[in-house]
């Protein structure tokens, strides 16, 4: 499993530590909220709404440099739009990886 990294955030911040910390704080706040909404919609079998939530989470996945995971999320989003849950486990693993990583920051 690929691991998240801060390459994009470092590049974006250009050495501005205060911006970097601000952005990480926003991600740490926003990611669990988006994840919770996704889980709620998924458990309610509202797959169309879940697809929208996955779409939003994809941005965080890409910001954290998870390129392969992004592709997995993309396919999973498409499946959810078709009311298929194929790819759920792999996507949940991505969410767990990010959750664990954010706790280390």
């Amino acid at each position, binding site marked *: 499993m690929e691991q998240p990294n801060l390459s*994009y955030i470092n*590049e*974006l*911040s*250009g050495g501005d530590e205060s*911006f970097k910390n*601000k*952005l990480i704080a*926003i*991600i740490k*706040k*926003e990611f669990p909220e988006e994840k919770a909404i996704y889980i709620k919609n998924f458990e309610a079998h509202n797959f169309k709404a879940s697809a*929208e939530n996955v*779409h*939003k989470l*994809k*941005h*965080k996945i*890409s*910001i954290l440099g998870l390129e392969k995971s992004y592709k997995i999320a993309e396919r999973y989003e498409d499946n959810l739009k078709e009311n298929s849950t194929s790819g759920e486990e792999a996507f949940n693993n991505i969410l767990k990886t990010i959750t664990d990583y954010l706790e280390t920051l």
Partner: protein
Amino acid sequence: MNCIIIDDEATARTILAQLCSNVPSLNILEEFPNAIQAIKYLNQNEVDLIFLDIHMPDFTGFDFIETIKNPPKIILTTSDSQFAIEAFEYDCIVDYLVKPIALPRFEKAIKKAESVTSVLTQAPENDKVETISGNDLYVNIDRRLIKIDIPSIYLIEAKGDYIHVKTEDKNYTVHSTLKKIEEKLPKDLFLKVHRSYVINVQKIIDIEDNSVLIKKDVIPVSRSNRPELMKRLNLL
């Protein structure tokens, strides 16, 4: 350029604001988490450029563009590349950025937006119908200024936010108004015969009751415009 950011994701707004801070010509006026708030703001404020997310709950970026009158330049920001073709159907969209946005790509988009600005400011009175040079009229279609030979125009029809310009050789659809193009055309040649039509009087084939035949188009003539039309004719 004064700009606003519309994105429901705080992370995305923060990143865009940071990218903007690297470009001295950009001045962020406001950030909005949804399109509705932005519409209210735009009703009272003018901006040059909008960074707009497509995927937003309830009211998408495309809904937003359809709603606002005379949209300023827009750079779309999205996690999907699948909307690119749809995006460029809108004249106001100058670029399409796929997240995560890197600074070099962002700067390229701003250069594009600035180049569109310089073309538009050459004719500040106008929206899309630009300039006349002799017998030519230049119209902005898909960010290209296309030359139309004025005497070849036989009919202009208003359709919502667009006008259809019909010439001997080709037809053009331009994002503009009948009033704007009318101001750019020679008064002795063109006449508004109806609130939706301007005709080239030299191209009239015949007139019957409340309509004129121009080429193969039968155009209604409103009662208020009929006296002026009749005045223009060399009646026997």
